């Protein structure tokens, strides 16, 4: 059968064994030829005169829009939608924190000791820990809900002063984040803004909203609610699902939405529900980023009830076809439509906790702060019911897949702890030439860049050879972990300098920061390195890459990287190449605006060479790293 490739040999074998299901690996081939105008970004569907496509015979849309306007407008719409997704996550996390802090929710904060530091960072006060936590949530929500003409107040507290100054100078400081998204939709509607440069600057503004709020503040609040990540060892891959248990699969991005379920499963009563049905108990199996987040904080919460991370976005249909998942609960995105017929075949109960991710055949049980315990009990009862009815009817086929020694729990805080309380040792390793630089391999997996995780794995391999330390977050990490890159033995793939560092610190050469939200953590690491070195972020020998970016959220993440002044590599271009102007601004002119730029290179060897050259050039400018 002609199916899309994957970099994961165990997964490939399992895919080939499944002849009766239709997955994304089949549909990628079925889709065949792509629309060239869509790929270039020069198709506009904004009005009834269209769709208009730009060609030499028709260089303008009916309204007069040029390729530059169409491309910039389409890109801003995509970035706005991506920003909106992350802003939804930070909003629901802040609402949960507020509910717990004010006693509306019966849950407790797992890391109350982290409240003080975040309150101090954000400049909020309170008489008690709970009052401070509530003040944190209020400050975040107040910023999100501000009108666009009022600048958000926490930006200055979160950003490096040098960045802040540059953003102010260029006019990138965002007003209320939700209003910024709202006005981006206005700008990109029919016969409104036609200025590509204005639209691209709006993208960077939304990047700041995404990065500081959607990513960084979500992580910081989740760390308080769910516990701080600690470096440890965990299992990944399909083998994490133990058929002796009732298995609740989870997909999405909001760890704290599962706070109630995890708390209930940690009680004897919760597990007794599973045992009464004849199972050993009830487990959570992670799929997509929310599983990565659970794995990250496994030491702090859910240990014993979280059986591990099965895989990234494009593994979910196959994970369901193991038959070992009794119920799948999704709270946010990266839940593929394709799971619905497979769930029907394998009699798997589907539940959504938020109507933003409501699937046609799933039951919607809306998560409401304050009602977490009722929801947790209901979910467990539904899982038990599904287990009872389906297990006599389905065949379970869990393959030997994944690694049991994946190093997890890396955060900006746990990494610093590992290095002895400061990032200085990492700077020293770069400065003395032991490691060549740091690359963030971030974001999604897709099937288009050579196959599932194919480019991510190939690029990572090339970077390690060149003694470049890889920090990873998102589905890239899920894929890399399932291909052995986050296990200690992966040091064998590293160059001599990086291998020595792995030996000394007992770490793999790819550091697993967990979910895509942790892109915010990796960018905090970059900011901290810059601060310690007394320089600005664009001067760092750091490159970030979303080699197999998939979706609009990844574009919003990328815009944060660009606003921070980082080089952002993509294997495939976003839909911008139809506009010479937009392409030039993002790939050539941006260094003069924020210091960042987009680098598009499909070939992993050429891309790695370019990363290395950029790092050499930046180190030379700083006079470090033996790069005279």
């Amino acid at each position, binding site marked *: 059968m002609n199916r899309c490739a994957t970099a994961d040999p165990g997964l490939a074998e399992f895919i080939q064994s499944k002849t009766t299901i239709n997955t994304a690996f089949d549909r990628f081939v079925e889709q065949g*030829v792509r629309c060239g*105008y869509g790929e*270039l970004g020069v198709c506009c569907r904004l009005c009834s005169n269209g769709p208009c496509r730009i*060609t*030499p*015979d028709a*260089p303008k849309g009916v309204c007069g829009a040029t390729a*530059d306007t169409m491309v910039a407008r389409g890109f801003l719409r995509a970035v706005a939608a991506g920003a909106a997704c992350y802003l939804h996550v930070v909003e629901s996390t802040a609402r949960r924190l507020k509910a717990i802090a004010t006693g509306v929710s019966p849950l407790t904060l797992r890391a109350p000791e982290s409240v003080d530091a975040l309150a101090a960072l954000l400049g909020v006060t309170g008489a008690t820990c709970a009052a401070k936590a509530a003040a944190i949530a209020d400050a975040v929500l107040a910023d999100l809900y501000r009108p666009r003409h009022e600048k958000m107040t926490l930006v200055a507290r979160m950003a490096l002063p040098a960045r802040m100054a540059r953003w102010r100078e260029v006019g990138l400081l965002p007003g209320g984040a939700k209003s910024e998204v709202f006005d981006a939709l206005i700008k990109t509607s029919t016969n409104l803004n036609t200025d590509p440069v204005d639209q691209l600057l709006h993208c960077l503004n939304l990047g700041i909203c995404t990065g500081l709020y959607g990513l960084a503040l979500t992580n910081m609040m989740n760390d308080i609610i769910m516990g701080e990540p600690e470096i440890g060892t965990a299992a990944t891959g399909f083998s994490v699902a133990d058929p002796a248990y009732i298995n609740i699969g989870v997909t999405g991005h909001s760890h704290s939405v599962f706070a109630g379920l995890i708390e209930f499963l940690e009680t004897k009563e919760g597990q007794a529900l599973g045992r009464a049905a004849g199972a050993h108990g009830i487990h959570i199996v992670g799929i997509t980023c929310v599983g990565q987040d659970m794995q990250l904080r496994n030491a702090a919460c859910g240990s014993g009830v979280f059986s591990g991370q099965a895989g990234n976005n494009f593994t979910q249909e196959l994970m369901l076809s193991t038959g070992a998942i009794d119920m799948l609960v999704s709270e946010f995105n990266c839940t593929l439509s394709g799971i619905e017929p497979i769930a029907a075949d394998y009699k798997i109960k589907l539940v959504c906790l938020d109507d933003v991710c409501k699937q046609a055949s799933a039951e919607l049980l809306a998560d409401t702060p304050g009602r977490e315990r009722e929801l947790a009990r209901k979910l467990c009862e539904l899982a038990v019911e599904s287990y009872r009815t389906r297990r006599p009817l389905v065949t379970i086929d869990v393959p030997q897949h994944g690694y049991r020694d994946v190093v997890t729990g890396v955060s900006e805080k746990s990494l610093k702890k590992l290095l002895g309380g400061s990032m200085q040792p990492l700077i020293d390793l770069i400065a003395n030439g032991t490691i060549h630089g740091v690359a963030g391999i971030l974001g999604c997996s897709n099937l288009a860049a050579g196959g599932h995780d194919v480019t991510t794995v190939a690029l990572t391999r090339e970077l390690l050879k060149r003694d470049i330390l890889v920090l990873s977050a998102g589905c890239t990490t899920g894929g890399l972990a399932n291909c052995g890159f986050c296990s200690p033995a992966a040091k064998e793939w590293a160059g001599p300098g990086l291998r020595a560092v792995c030996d000394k610190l007992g770490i793999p050469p790819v550091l697993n920061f967990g979910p895509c939200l942790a892109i915010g953590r990796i960018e905090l690491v970059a900011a901290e390195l810059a601060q310690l070195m007394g320089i600005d972020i664009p001067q760092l020998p750091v490159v970030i890459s979303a080699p197999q970016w998939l979706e609009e959220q990844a574009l919003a993440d990328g815009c944060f990287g660009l606003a921070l002044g980082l080089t952002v590599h993509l294997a495939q271009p976003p839909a911008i*190449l139809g506009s010479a102007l937009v392409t030039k601004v993002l790939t050539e002119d941006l260094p003069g605006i924020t210091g960042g730029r987009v680098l598009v290179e499909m070939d992993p060897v050429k891309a790695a060479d370019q990363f290395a050259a950029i790092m050499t050039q930046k180190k030379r400018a700083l006079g470090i790293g033996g790069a005279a």
Partner: protein
Amino acid sequence: MRKKAIDRSKCRGCKNCELACIAVHSAGTTTHTAYATGMKTTERARNKVEADPQNKSFPQFCRHCDEPACVEACTSGALTKGADGLVVCDHDICIGCYMCVMSCPYGMARPSVQTDGKMIKCDGCRGRDVMACVAACPQRCLTAVEVDDPGGGHLIYADEPAPNACGSKP
């Protein structure tokens, strides 16, 4: 002999065949390179998706006629019909008089939109492994077929359009 079969009932008017034609005749031969410098340096397509009198999509291509009106009208001798049945233009000879443009009943002898002012037309992707428009058609409205007979033109319509009264013989 390679010919192009067209089942126009499958055409959805996506114009991917036009884009593929633009790309393959541009310097870098990809859509990305074709659009890299903006429309000013991009050559138009040698084909065109039109609407028929019933307002249905009609993918219009050069027929490479057996008795080509364009070749007959060509004042410079640039247009010739080869042994492989393809009618092609030698751009070194073309003087841009556009007699071909005025004589082609299908509108498929086209003036270049570039500054050299010469004519452009379908070359049947002579010398290429696949015909670019065929490879880019997501609907399989266009397919390549191998036939023994070089006559009867380059196109094989599943649903033959009405013959054009003033046209050359396809």
